[in-house]
């Protein structure tokens, strides 16, 4: 009987639950969270902390003992025994751009052609994706939807993951251009002869010449006075030369990283970051000396060469940390859209192979925010910054203990339900579990 009632009540609310939950309304009154262990995101851990926020901004973040405001004006959440983290930030992702990989109609991540710097991911970002709620529930609250493919894939933006539409979601519009560095030419097929290699090499050189030409002209074009004949490609590239946009150089091989960075710097690119960087261990000194930021692609990956250390991908973050290179972690790779809910565990693996827990947390929060240029507001839990954070019963970076109980974006308490939690309840109901 109990089973029947449970099932009936589920179905009554089912229609609503089957949808992506309603975005949370703006923060109505000040909130105070007490008793949690605060992981600031900058390496600091505060046991028994207090976190207060109003109108979406943190008014206090520190030891409970230091909180002196009148508690009665706050809605208080007792989070004793819980862990409090900045909302994780997922850089370089197809989240919101792709729903179901195999269905072309649901994929909006790669435009045709190789030079699309004018293309903007933001406008394709789908706030109604069924995937978004499943990512939030593991702690990811911000993301950088990023176009894929081509040479110049287009522009990414930074969004928060609880919104009615993309205009609502945007945190930083069109923050960067994405350049996939042409891969160096190697003989990948033992039967490929020297002339075929040579042909590919020439094609690559041609591509780089074209790119150099394009950058040169774009840099000159932006200096033209108003009334110039509009060229969407050239004008969209202006930002990487005036410093308003970051150029994300997607390159994995050590020598490609060095080549790409030198190329970009030589042509006057102001801000850049290397994305992918799976062989960054080959270029640690270079990255450090040239103050290059790195977005390390999913370290749950196989070593790139048979003889590489089995844990080479896992230990790359620790190698970058030891070398003093600024880096953050992403989830690019197979099945990245739905899989990106595992970002926290990427950081966990980096701990298993050499980082401290707080260093790993920084690599999915504050450093990511710094690289994207949103660290004034996001990435760490410090007074004055956005109240964007999660509460977890245990260590967020370990799937064994990751259990998000509450999540806030800009002070808004967002829903932790999803299509998947709905289906879970529905079928637990079926079996009376």
């Amino acid at each position, binding site marked *: 009987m109990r089973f029947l009632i449970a099932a009936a009540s589920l179905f009554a609310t089912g229609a609503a639950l089957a949808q992506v939950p309603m975005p949370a309304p703006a923060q109505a009154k000040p909130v105070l969270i007490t008793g949690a262990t605060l992981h600031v995101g900058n390496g600091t851990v505060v046991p028994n902390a207090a976190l207060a926020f109003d109108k979406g901004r943190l008014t206090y973040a520190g030891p409970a003992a230091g909180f002196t405001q009148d508690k009665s004006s706050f809605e208080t959440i007792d989070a004793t025994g819980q862990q409090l983290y900045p909302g994780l930030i997922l850089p370089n992702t197809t989240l919101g751009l792709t729903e179901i990989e195999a269905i072309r109609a649901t994929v909006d991540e790669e435009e045709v052609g190789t030079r699309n710097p004018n293309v903007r991911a933001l406008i394709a970002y789908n706030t109604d994706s069924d995937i978004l709620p499943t990512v939030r529930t593991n702690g990811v609250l911000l993301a950088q939807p990023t176009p894929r493919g081509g040479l110049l894939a287009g522009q990414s933006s930074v969004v928060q993951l609880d919104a009615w539409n993309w205009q609502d979601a945007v945190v930083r519009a069109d923050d960067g251009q994405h350049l996939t560095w042409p891969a160096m030419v190697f003989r990948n097929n033992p039967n490929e002869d020297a002339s075929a290699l040579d042909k590919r090499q020439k094609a690559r050189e041609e591509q780089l010449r074209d790119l150099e030409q394009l950058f040169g002209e774009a840099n000159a074009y932006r200096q033209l006075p108003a009334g110039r004949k509009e060229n969407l490609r050239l004008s969209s590239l202006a930002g990487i030369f005036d410093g308003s946009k970051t150029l994300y150089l997607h390159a994995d091989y050590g020598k490609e990283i060095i080549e790409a960075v030198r190329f970009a710097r030589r042509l006057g690119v102001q801000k850049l970051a290397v994305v992918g960087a799976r062989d960054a261990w080959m270029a640690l000194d270079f990255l450090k000396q040239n103050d290059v930021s790195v977005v390390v692609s999913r370290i749950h990956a196989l070593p790139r060469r*048979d003889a590489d250390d089995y844990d080479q991908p896992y230990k790359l973050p620790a190698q970058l940390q030891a070398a003093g290179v600024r880096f953050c972690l992403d989830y690019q790779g197979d*099945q990245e859209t739905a899989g990106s809910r595992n970002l926290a565990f990427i950081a966990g693996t980096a701990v298993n192979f050499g980082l401290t827990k707080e260093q790993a947390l920084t690599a999915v929060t504050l450093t990511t925010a710094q690289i994207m240029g949103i660290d004034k507001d996001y990435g760490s839990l410090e007074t004055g910054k956005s109240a964007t954070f999660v509460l977890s019963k245990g260590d967020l970076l370990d799937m064994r203990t990751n259990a998000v109980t509450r999540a806030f974006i800009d002070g808004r308490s967002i829903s932790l339900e999803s299509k998947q939690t709905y289906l879970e309840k529905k079928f637990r109901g079926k079996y009376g579990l």
Partner: protein
Amino acid sequence: MKNHTKKGMATALLAVAGSAAWAQPGTFPRNGVYDQRPGTFAFTHATLYTDYQTKISDGTLLVRDGKVVATGPAASVKIPAGAVVQDVAGKFIYPGLVDVFTSYGVPDAPAAARSRRAGPQFESQKTGAYSWNQAVHPEVNAAELFKINNDQATAYRALGFGAVLTQPADGIMRGTATLVSLNTNRREQEVMLLERAAAGLSFDKGSSTQDYPGSLMGSIALLRQTYLDAQWNQRNPARERNLSLQALSQQKALPAIFQVNDKLSALRADKLGDEAGQQYIIKGRGDEYQRLDDLKKTGATFVVPLNFPEAYDVADVYDALRIPLEDLKHWELAPANAARLSQAGVPFVLTAADLKDKKKFLPNLRKAAQYGLSETAALRALTETPARLLRAQDRIGALKPGMEANFIVCSAHFLADDNVLLDNWVQGERYQLSTVPADYRGVYKFSLTSAEKILKNEFYIGADMSMLIQGKPEAPELKIVPTVGDTIKGSVAVTSELATIVFNFSDKQKGKGAKSAEVPKAPSSAPSPAEGSVRLSGFYTQEGRVFQGDGLLADGTPVKWRAVRQEEATRAARRDSAKVVPLPVLGNVIFPFAAYGRAALPSQQPTLIKNATVWTSEAAGKLEATDVLLENGKITRIGKNLALPKGGRSIDGTGKHLAPGIIDEHSHLAISGGVNEGTQAVTSEVRIGDVVDNEDVGIYRDLAGGVVAAQLLHGSANPIGGQSALVKLRWGATPEDMKIVGAPGFIKFALGENVKQSNWGELNVLRFPQTRMGTEQVFVDAFTRAREYEQEWKAWNKLSKGKQKAAEAPRHDLELEALVEILNKQRFITCHSYVQSEINMLMGVADRMGFQVNTFTHILEGYKVADKMKAHGANASTFSDWWAYKNEVKDAIPYNAAIMTRAGLNVAINSDDAEMSRRLNQEAAKTVKYGGLSEEEALRLVTINPAKMLHLDAHMGSIKEGKDADVVLWSENPLSIYAHPEYTFVDGREMFSLTADAALRADIKQERQRLVQAMLAARKGGAPTQAAPGKAQGLWHCDTLGQEKEAAQ
């Protein structure tokens, strides 16, 4: 026929008629005057090898009419009147070489013509009463295709070959090869020695455009079935007049040469041969040394190419890292292959096949000799053994009366550095290979002397100059090092009789000017002997290696000249031969022959793991501070304060966690040549067990992730896929030894988008089924046929022997036999499945047809039908949190495993992915987060539960006394992201540990460095190099088609 063709034919006829044809005219008319000659030749005073090992020092060889008449010491052979006598004193005569693997004079295999853009091709394009499969054409008779080819014959003769076996290298069953001599003066009818000398086979379907087989295992299955079909056809010829099967039956008694592309496929071919009652001769790749002992056990004779890789370009530190260790090592070891085969007593023959540049054959053979191959063994592998293999030892391969007069005349010992092949006689006819009397390249002591005293003190006169002859024997380059001053270049020409040398002392002034001051200025009135060219004429004597003769200086002064070769200096200066005479120092052969391979399997030393937290995956649960003893591959004791047996070692497990090794129920690692035979809807005849790849580095990486065993599954491209292999990750063992002894048979089934080809593009819309509706019918049809098949055989087996003789025997159908095994619970199904409708469908079909679905794998909507699965008795093997990658997984939820567990199913978490398989403990841990399983329950999802569903739980999957010692010592709670294996034991062998891994890393680094230095040295020494190859890092997925792996991230 067009005119120019006619003309061509006429020319060819003239060429034959115009040659010194002493042979009997045979059936052919002649145009013009007959030119039959006696054709009797006697070679006297030779060092005569009548076979590879029998030497006659002052021997006579007498041939007549294309055949050997007599051989023996000079005294014993009477030279008949009318013989042309050649005194070949100082020269060496050997039997003509034989190559058993060529495509001489037969059409090249056409490239597979079908474009990838075309849709599927289910049937053969070869019309007629032939095999259903386009790659199976045993009826092809190379003898019918053979045409004498002058260019090809010339190239082979230049290497010393006199006879070759030839066949188009195309297809899986290639038909019969023909043995021909390389005589090009005669006609096809006369040079053909054996019309059908051998059968040819391979795993490569070559130019066949038909889809099946689309994988290596498909090729093997096709061969296996074809042998059975031939037997059946022979027994019941009336049922099918099948010319291919008839031909196959007829050639069963012939030697069969099986071409493979590596040592593993050599083992595969031999195993297939054992089943078919055939001992194949195996044409390998030249990597046999990498599995010498196992290949020796096959009993096969190997046909071994001398195709040694060039050194790689390793100048760049990082680019060099891309070259797989096995390629670096193979570069070093390939020249030692033949020597090692020889030393191990593995019978082999050598072939010039696989060499892009055939001219490298002899230099490479000499290189093989430097690496330890004796001249006798080399000669044997090129004469006696191939002749015997082809059962033509009475005609070729030696020089005995009555045999073909195929022999080579050499200037020196066959494998001597300076040997020049002078003549190659084929069927009694001479083909001159070199007008050069010998290889006279080298460093000479050079003297110019003159009777005219005036010159005595001139710098260019004297006895202590040097002369260097370099380059090729046919195109020599000359350098003179005068008593004073720089080396100068000149020219030298040597023919069989005469030598001519020209150089100019003043040439050096144009080069380095440093010593030009030493050149005396000549008076302007008369030409100076120092300016202008010196011309020397004379001759070369092989004996003593001396040039001598007369000449004129530039001013007309007559001189005598003499150049005596300095043997030691010559050897040192040789660029094309090793400077070191002793055997090169070579790296170890490791097992597997890949990075992280070892010289031998780790031992089963008794191991006591002390004071660990032991996760038993048994009713005993988690035991704190407990010892576990591993002995002889088993877990022998679990308890406190256990004593360490003699000879054992103990590992401190304090603060660590010992757990059963992870078993991956769904893996595509360690598979060669394709994971899907998805070219037909039902391919239950193919077997992953045929194509286990023990060298996949994924095995080692999985061990580092705590995995000890896996089910290697066929892909999901068709409803009824292939049979699985259940293996332990015995890194370093042979593919056969990786298989779990006594494991039951499994097979892959699949449902949904993959089998209906939803995501395969617009061309793949023809293969049935294209819907879930059709998928059901595939199963119903297959099992209906299987039932009928079983009945047919049962009825047959009941017949008396006499009645069986009279009746028509049923045909063995390996596809249906696998299904009959399912019906009889001898084989178990792992079915790829996603949505509930199809899961219910298959259980329904199973219930109706009388079989059970052992496991639904993926089963991402299992949570919707867990009750029905429970009723059916199915296991569930799923992913922790995959979803949304295709339409049929849009309802997948991470709570699936927990709900199914709670509903009473036996549930596992699998990988289907070479990366995730390294972290299956983490994937299991997610079920604690999603759905609230206990930690012990979660760990069971990757240990005892998969063992149960694979029917291996009697001896695997948990920590229990008596079970296999497959355990992992984790640094932490194994469900934590912070845990990693410190030790992984398989059968009590330490297959992975952090310390052993560190040692292997160091070994790899050191070995790489050594080989890179060796390559740089080789390059400096003038060896050609090739661009560094990257190993196309690839992975198999469920839906990977064809034989190429998918690019990894």
